[in-house]
């Protein structure tokens, strides 16, 4: 078993996920099964291979199809009331959240 329960807790804290005990055990089992399968990637020698992060870069070798940046000009944005309309809690001007300082 590569992944310990301690690893599960650490990753859950990075991901801001609260897990129940049953979920922790299940997660440990599933992640170990998946990672064991993923480990076959180590069979491949990739020491001289460039990583590929975006397809459009690849496509652009043949076709310069992507204009990476738009021109720097002022444009309209979402009206304030539309932007906060979906907020679970707001005071009409700002999003409201629980206390930030935890002590």
């Amino acid at each position, binding site marked *: 078993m590569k992944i310990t329960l301690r690893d599960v807790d650490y990753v859950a804290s*990075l991901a801001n996920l609260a897990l129940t005990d049953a979920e922790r055990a299940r997660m440990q089992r599933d*992640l170990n099964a998946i990672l064991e399968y*993923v480990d076959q*990637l180590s069979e491949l020698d990739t020491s001289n291979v460039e990583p590929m992060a975006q397809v*459009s870069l690849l496509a652009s070798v043949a076709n310069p199809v992507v204009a990476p940046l738009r021109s720097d000009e002022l444009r309209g944005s979402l009206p304030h009331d539309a932007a906060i309309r979906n907020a679970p809690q707001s005071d009409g001007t700002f999003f409201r959240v629980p206390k930030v300082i935890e002590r």
Partner: protein
Amino acid sequence: MSDDLDLNLLTVSSARASVQERQTTATALVESFYTKIQTEDRQSGQVNAYLTLTRDRALEQAKRMDSIVDCGNPLPELGGVPMAIKDVMVTRGIRSTAGSKLLDNYVPPYDCTAVSRLEAAGAIILGKLNCDEFAMGSSNENSAWGPVRNPRDLTRVPGGSSGGSAASVAAGTAVAALGSDTGGSIRQPAAFCGVVGMMPTYGRVSRYGLIAFGSSLDHIGPLTKSAKDAAIILRHIAGRDPMDSTSADLPVPDYEAEIGKSVRGLRIGVPREYFPDEMDADVRSSVEAGIKLLASSGCEVKYISLPNSRYAIPTYYVLATAEASANLARYDGVRYGYRSPNAKTLGEMYRRTRAEGFGPEVKRRIMLGTYALSAGYYDAYYLKAQKVRTLIARDFTEAFKVVDAIVTPTTPTPAFKLGEKADDPLAMYLADIFTVTASLAGIPGVSVPCGRSKTGLPIGMQILGRHFEEGTILRLAHALEHTRAGVST
């Protein structure tokens, strides 16, 4: 409304023609689709493709189309065509859930570009379609709103994640639908439900307004009854959009004209890795029959190899989950969506909101992706997978030097039973084994029906093409449909 109009048989062009030629009105057509949806989709035990009906918006658009006809003017190309949209595309003023409880009450302030382009071309949006939560799944069983059932056999899954899109088209409760495809989510359900599903080249269709899953892999595309319908719809949703910097600034061809051309002389590659010895016998015989038909239409068949294909599933599930873990960090209960009422501090609110809002598969993928990106594992998993992605893309580059298209089965088996793989994530991931390679390479792919299993379940053939050569693969799909129709009649 004319009673002799069979909604199940309507295509994009025949739906438009029925309104244009006053066989019916757009308004009456919309009403009869809603009646069909109420009686065939929404009752318990039925297909469950629709999550939200967009009645007001549909009737308003129908009225616009009817007044065009009343004035004696020609309808736009999608004028009066009733369509539906996977609920991962946002719609202004209409709740957009991505199949998640977390977005139950989310009412977006803007429209997805693909949706507004459809409407600008006259299409009528009937509603929003069920899908796996945040498009993560291969069976539609991960929806917070219950699974979709396969209209061809209600005990089976429709595939996923665009299960509602494929099922609505197969059931005739929409003439055509939009879906999204990250690792096979358009093509696999299309194959399971016996419809056409097209994933365009990465960048061909703007992703603006598509709720993000894996941003380097996400695509929007059509699910339709025919390659011709897919060609018509693709032309309207494709093209540069200033709101998506990865959308390609290339002219959009007339795909409908392209599919009319002959397939004679096209070289089609059959990769041996997609036909393993242990493969499903019905899938093998249907796909091989399809290849024979293409050969009889004048295609040259070449046997090729895509040697790194076997690494595609592990590569995909590292990269897609890593991207997902970053994309889904935005669901924190602050600006929109669900917020846990059970938290006293901000940190607790984040953790509980996400724990209570996300389903098990989404949590699993966030965890896997976070792990793959975490300190100490980034090189071994994320960077490694990005390098293998290069190798998989290179396989295709090499293959397309000697062939014009590649044909494979879309799925290893026909539609499986509801619940059959629900408890085994790895078995579920393997349902995407033939579709993830094209997603990683960013090339276009279409699934087209090529036969049925002995028990009558649809089987799909996947046709892959070079970047931005959607016309070629749609042409082959169209040719296959026509030679098959010729054989079976």
